[in-house]
């Protein structure tokens, strides 16, 4: 129903055309970043590909292929099934909650036979898609109406509470912040965020007593004064700062990080891998990685802004924001700027779940890029492909 003014806006592109328009530079930057991770995992194992580096490389390879597959799909497919996907993941979250009640304690995993999925991770992507579809369908005027904002607020609130109950503070935080960023990018008025912030401050004491588990409270208290408990919860932060600080400008050299290799550093292959990088390669190494991340973020923003369809823009900003939150929360945590929350360093930390989420998200981002010139009507829900 909309006129098209070029082959790129045509409903269908050939596979070859799509491959040609894939953002290859972005893929290369991703691979470079992940390679830093491989090197650090090799070092963490004391100079061995086993047990972490080799598996991480296989995962990244498989994930990269999956990412390109996602990138090559028609973006309208994601528009059409956004809600369906969201509700599927929400159902999985509820299932986890119930099986958790049944007897496993804190459970975040669901077994799908051949592999395990963590619904809270999938929710990060599902939420981006669902919110993008919702705001894609609303006009500027709609976004101005408070009632219009109620459904998406529930769409965020329900899974957020479920995940917080798991309990997984880090994921909840990321989900909430990424969603707020999408509300913001969709054009929700500034004053509404100010009110929300005010309400948050007022309700913080309620959350403290009603929602947070003891260990989560402990982490926050520890963050406020880490030196009070050097061998308990504050230990991680202090050891991480020692490792980082002793790295200096140029670091101790590859595989020479004494604090990491002597196990003073906890979880060096996962959440604290940035510390290890900064210990072994110093300020220079840390800045290099942050520069790579910055480039990826800039490309993410550029891709988002250059999309000619609103769904694409919102998916782009949602993915970029999620990526940024991974980076910021993790790095700020290891440097003692925020409390210890279990958030891995994207593309670098060992672990399959976050890698899967991220490459899925980047696949969507690249998909947005390929379909940047495709226009999709506000009321078009992707049914006409």
């Amino acid at each position, binding site marked *: 129903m909309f006129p098209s003014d070029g082959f790129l806006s045509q409903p269908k592109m050939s596979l070859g055309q799509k491959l040609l328009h894939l953002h290859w530079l972005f893929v290369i930057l991703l691979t470079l970043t992940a390679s830093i991770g491989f090197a650090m995992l090799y070092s963490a194992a004391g100079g061995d590909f086993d047990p972490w580096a080799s598996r991480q490389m296989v995962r990244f390879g498989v994930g990269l292929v999956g990412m390109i597959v996602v990138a090559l799909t028609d973006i309208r497919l994601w528009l059409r099934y956004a809600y369906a996907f969201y509700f599927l993941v929400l159902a999985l979250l509820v299932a986890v909650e119930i099986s958790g009640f049944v007897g496993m304690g804190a459970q975040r995993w669901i077994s799908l036979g051949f592999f395990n999925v963590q619904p809270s991770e999938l929710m990060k992507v599902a939420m981006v898609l669902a919110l993008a579809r919702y705001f894609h369908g609303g006009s500027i005027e709609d976004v101005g109406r408070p009632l219009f904002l109620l459904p998406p607020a529930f769409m965020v609130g329900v899974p957020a509470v479920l995940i917080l109950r798991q309990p997984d503070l880090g994921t909840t935080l990321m989900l909430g912040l990424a969603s707020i*960023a999408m509300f913001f*990018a969709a054009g929700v008025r500034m004053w509404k965020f100010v009110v929300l912030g005010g309400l948050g401050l007022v309700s913080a004491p309620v959350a403290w007593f009603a929602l947070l588990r003891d260990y989560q409270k402990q982490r926050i208290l520890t963050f406020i004064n880490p030196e009070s408990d050097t061998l308990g919860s504050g230990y991680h932060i202090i050891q991480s700062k020692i490792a980082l600080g002793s790295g*200096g400008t140029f670091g101790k050299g590859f595989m020479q990080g004494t604090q990491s290799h002597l196990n003073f550093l906890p979880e060096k292959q996962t959440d604290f891998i940035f510390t290890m990088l900064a210990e072994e390669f110093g300020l220079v190494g840390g800045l290099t990685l942050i520069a790579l991340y*910055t480039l990826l973020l800039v490309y993410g923003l550029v891709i988002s802004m250059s999309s000619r369809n609103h769904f694409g823009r919102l998916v782009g900003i949602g993915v970029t924001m999620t990526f940024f939150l991974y980076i910021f929360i993790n790095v700020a945590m290891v440097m003692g*700027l925020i409390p210890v929350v279990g958030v891995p360093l994207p593309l670098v930390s060992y672990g399959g779940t976050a890698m899967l989420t991220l490459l899925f998200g980047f696949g969507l981002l690249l998909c947005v890029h390929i379909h940047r010139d495709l226009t999709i009507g506000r009321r078009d829900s992707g049914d006409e492909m």
Partner: protein
Amino acid sequence: MHRDSERHKLFSRRALMLGAGQGALLSALVGRMYYLQVIESARYVTLADENRINLRLLAPPRGAIIDRRGRAMAGNEQNYRVVIIPEQAGDVEHTLNLLSLIVPLSPGERRRIRREVKRKRAFVPITVRENLEWAEVARIEVNSPDLPGILIDVGQSRNYTFGPETAHVLGYVAAVSEKELTGDPLLELPGFRIGKAGVERVYDLALRGAGGSSQVEVNALGRVIRELDRQEGQPGAEVRLTIDLQLQRYITERLGDLSASVVVVDVFTGEVMALVSTPSFDPNAFNTGLSQAEWESLVSNPKAPLTNKAIAGQYAPGSTFKMAVALAALEKGAVTPDTHIFCSGSTKLGNSEFHCWKRGGHGTLDLQGALEQSCDVYFYEVARRTGIERIGAMARRLGLGTSLGLDLPGEKGGLVPSNDWKLGAIGTPWQLGETMIAGIGQGYILATPLQLAIMTARIANGGRAVTPRLTVDQVREAGVTPFLKVEADSLGIIPEHLAQVRRGMERVVNSPSGTAYRARISETEHRMAGKSGTVQVRRISKAERETGVVKNKDLPWKERDHALFVAFAPLDNPRFSVSVVVEHGGGGSSVAAPIARDTLAEVQRLAPLLSTKTDQEA
């Protein structure tokens, strides 16, 4: 399209604002990194080093103790221990069950191990059993695939080759007690042993050596990753004793189960060639720890196995003291060698009657004859004429009355009484009768077997003030240096007087009428001279004396006389002196003299081998 471009503009504005926010936050991260890694870096480098370097002490091997001919008396032996590392064992209980098929473990041991497993970190080895037999070690090693986390560990423990035979000389080592901590960190090492008695204690610092240290890199759990630096300690010095192991063992065997002591010294150097006190104890047992029952049986034994009687036993010297009385009298001129005194079997002073050991009396005797037959009446009279002060002074010159400074702990000084001493200690003035009693070596006077051997040596060597010593070289904390001075100072006793006394001692053994004629050495070049002593430990009442003194063998052990004998040999060119004290043994000439004879015969038989000089060169 118009609506969408409006949306697009708003979106782009908001996206740029988000981008700016991200940029600001990332800049904050970079700033924090700069702060930690550049500005505060030095502080964290220091913290990192403290994190990972741990200093450990290395115990030095304890110095060996050897005899004068270089034979091992005390050394270190490999001590095989079996340890369990809980982390590697996994199921500790199961592993211990399997291990107890080889090394039976008592419920008490199991409890101790369980307690330690709980208390210590999982990678710290816990001792299951020490001092394993070689067969047990072999069986554990063979079965090691089925015993995860079980390791054989080799430590060093002190070993005394001849246990009880040298225990009183060497002493023993044991764990450091709270009071003995001096701040030396070596002493705080678990399992460290220090000398608690004997040579081990006197020369503990030299034997101990100096501890080394090892700087190790540890991880956050304290597990050792690698060694960064190692400084070897100084092994303990080897201490060479003047004891001849063969002689020491010979005498120990000769004494059997008597409660006795024998000291053999070189009359010119004062080197103690044997120092035996029986019964003895096993010093190796002290190393591993004694049970309560074992300890109590040692302590309650009436023959006092833990006391080194040779230096800590104080006895009235009895007739062996008569040489000192004779020398004092000759020096004063109270008697000459020709002074003849008649013995009727007793003498009187006021209302008191002083008896000779021979009921019928000896008739008329000169000095040598009185020594030969050990006439008490003769010496009552000589003492009366000489006075306690002159006797006491001579006794002190001969080495009695004060400790001789032997390098062993617990040496007693004995007692040489005087008027002043009695006023101070008892509060009444000295009586003449007490002087007469002192003339036969009874009463207040006390001497150790070591002092008697030194007294005899000083008589035999022509009046030189030899002092006893136990080591061939001077042992200091820093190490071992040779003794410089060889010849001892003269005591200023007129040689003719000494010759008279020696002649009397010669006749004791070699004259058919001497008290110890039966204990003579018949080989001419090995002949000895000596003096017996028999010391009452009970009062003989007047009634008993009239009905006939009860024979020793009819008395309970504790009431029998002490038997003493001092001697030197060879007769013509004295080289060795010996003192023998047999507690409650009976007669000095019948019990102690044969032991002295056998000892001197043995030491002279060994004499060609005894020089430490030739051994050092060999």
